């Protein structure tokens, strides 16, 4: 190797500053990973002893200082289902419209701008809006219906965006091939585009369900009940929900000390839902990617 043209000291300084910078980045990144594992580890460590079959299947008792969280689990699952019924069909149709029908131009830009804006609206504003529109104006009262509608609107932008992005990546040759065979536009979408985009759309839908399961602010005034031990019997009933339950028992109540184990357990169940959702979505993504590759 030839001797370097720069003086050795300059070269050394350059390398040293690179070493320092990269080391710093690595330390910061590891620290962030550490923070995540600290949060997860702490809640799992404290919560795992609380989890038992009874905890998962019994209603709270003794002023919520003992018993389980069954109604809250059911409530959260109902709200996830309800919001899916609200958001998925409309969101997927909206995504299809944006990618397949709308002509490129100011209209699409406008719709996309609105969708982005909606996704930036804070969840508490959704809560206010849901209260004003569904609870008061339409007269649904505090109910699963009002909560599902509010959460559905909240997850709408996410559903639209994933659908749009999934469809965008499908090469236009598939559309042209189908159209050239004499299929109509609708047939092309139904038989070619949607099946191809489905894996990624479903991944996005699962992630949006995960987001819905943890939202508290939108259901504060539209659905969540402080204490409602029996299971809801209709969509006009209130229901308990895991995130709201965690908020309530960790900040208020008759005996905060005695409630703490329940809070850990609730937090763990919430985190477990998120973990399952993330793993499911990740697994699906990998599975479909591999299948596409082997084809």
């Amino acid at each position: 190797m030839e001797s370097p043209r720069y003086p050795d000291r300059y070269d050394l300084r350059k390398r040293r500053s690179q070493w320092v910078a990269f080391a710093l980045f690595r330390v910061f990144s590891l620290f962030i990973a550490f923070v995540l594992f600290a949060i997860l580890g702490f809640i799992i460590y404290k919560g795992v002893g609380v989890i038992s079959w009874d905890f998962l299947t019994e209603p709270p008792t003794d002023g919520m200082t003992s018993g389980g969280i069954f109604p809250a689990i059911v409530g959260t699952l109902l709200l996830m289902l309800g919001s899916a019924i609200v958001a998925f069909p409309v969101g997927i149709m909206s995504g299809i419209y944006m990618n397949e029908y709308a002509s490129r131009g100011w209209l699409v830009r406008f719709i996309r701008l609105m969708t982005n804006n909606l996704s930036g609206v804070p969840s508490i504003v959704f809560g206010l809006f849901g209260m004003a529109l569904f609870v008061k104006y339409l007269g649904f009262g505090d109910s699963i219906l009002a909560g599902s509608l509010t959460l559905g609107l909240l997850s709408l932008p996410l559903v639209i965006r994933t659908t749009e992005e999934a469809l965008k990546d499908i090469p236009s040759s598939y559309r042209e091939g189908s159209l050239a065979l004499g299929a109509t536009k609708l047939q092309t979408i139904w038989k070619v585009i949607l099946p191809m985009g489905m894996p990624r759309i479903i991944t996005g839908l699962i992630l949006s369900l995960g987001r819905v399961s943890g939202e508290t602010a939108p259901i504060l005034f539209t659905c969540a009940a402080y204490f409602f031990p029996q299971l809801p019997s209709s969509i006009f009933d209130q229901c308990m929900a895991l995130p709201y339950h965690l908020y309530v028992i960790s900040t208020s109540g008759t005996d905060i000390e005695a409630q703490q184990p329940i809070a850990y357990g609730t937090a763990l169940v919430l985190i477990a839902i998120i973990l399952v959702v993330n793993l499911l979505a990740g697994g699906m993504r990998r599975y479909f990617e591999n299948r596409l590759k082997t084809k």
Partner: protein
Amino acid sequence: MRKLFEKIVQWVLTGSGFVTSIVILLIIGFLFTEGAGLFRGRVIEEGYVLALNKENPVSRLTAEQIKGVFDEDIANWKEVGGPDLPIETFRLEDVDRYFSEEELGPQYERAGEAIVGWVEEHPGAIAFVPRVMIPEEADLHYIEDRTISPAEVFAGAEWFPTATPAPLFGMLPLLAGTLWVSLFAILFALPFGLSVAIYMSEVASERMRSILKPVIELLNGIPSVVYGFFGLIVIVPLLQQGFDLPVGESGLAGSIVLAIMALPTMITVAEDAMRSCPRSLREASLALGATRWQTIYRVVIPASMSGITSGVVLGIGRAVGETMAVLMVTGNAAVIPTSILEPLRTIPATIAAELGEAPAGGSHYQALFLLGVILFFITLVINMSVEYISSKNK
């Protein structure tokens, strides 16, 4: 037939394309109608009057002055532009202390007359009583009842929505609290966010990246109420001991939790921007003899600046709108913060904490919707600026 069906489907799809726009319009509509009602509300509680002795020339008091008078912070009429007279306040709750049972009558039917008599005898009196209790022929002088003015709300420094006789809706403390917490959150998050973004896009091996990526996604997925819980159980006590505070719930606790929550957005957007920086730029820089680090901070970062800025701004947006975590760890004192170590209260936390107790349709309820309008517009501005920044780049 087939064609008609296609047409119908197309119409349905077109309709659903506009659903987000419709939702935004509905949000604006509903929040505005409720929020704007505040300015039609009265300063003094509805159905009540503030009665003065007829010799007293004072007829206008601001809501803050009324509160000062009844809290006995203002003790003399000359402080509010009246004669030099000590103020004597009277609330309906005090009625038994001022008058004997005979004076009031067994069913309180003579209470009105008794109060009027008391006010007529005391030149410095101010009485807060229901309008219906005052007999029509009473010769008293009343504080003018005005509608709540925007200046009192947007420039008011005191938030006492449940104070009687005149609630105060000054939003400055909440606005300041929100900005204060978000500012510190971003200051904490910025070095970490940028470092991780640079590390993941430029430095890390593929293996390291495949570990960090899910970590960031999980951080993004954890519900805010879990962050709040973790903050309450772990961070708050740590801060209390570490800084020797009377209460650990403080702006600092809020900003630390918010910083963690704003990180994933920041990292993802900034990393995407840096990864999409063209390879040719990097190669040109390296070919000129620059080290990888020099290439990063002289070429990659400037080239992807708009994306990085978008990430940071979106992170701010997330911090400003965050509700539950902040509600749980900041202590919720509605005062203009002087130090980050004190409890403070943000706009979203105020809405979440108070809407349940505010009677629907009342001034307090409307004030909370007005806060929602403000929050909506703050995030709208943030989103628009992100759009602007990223469109400028193309």
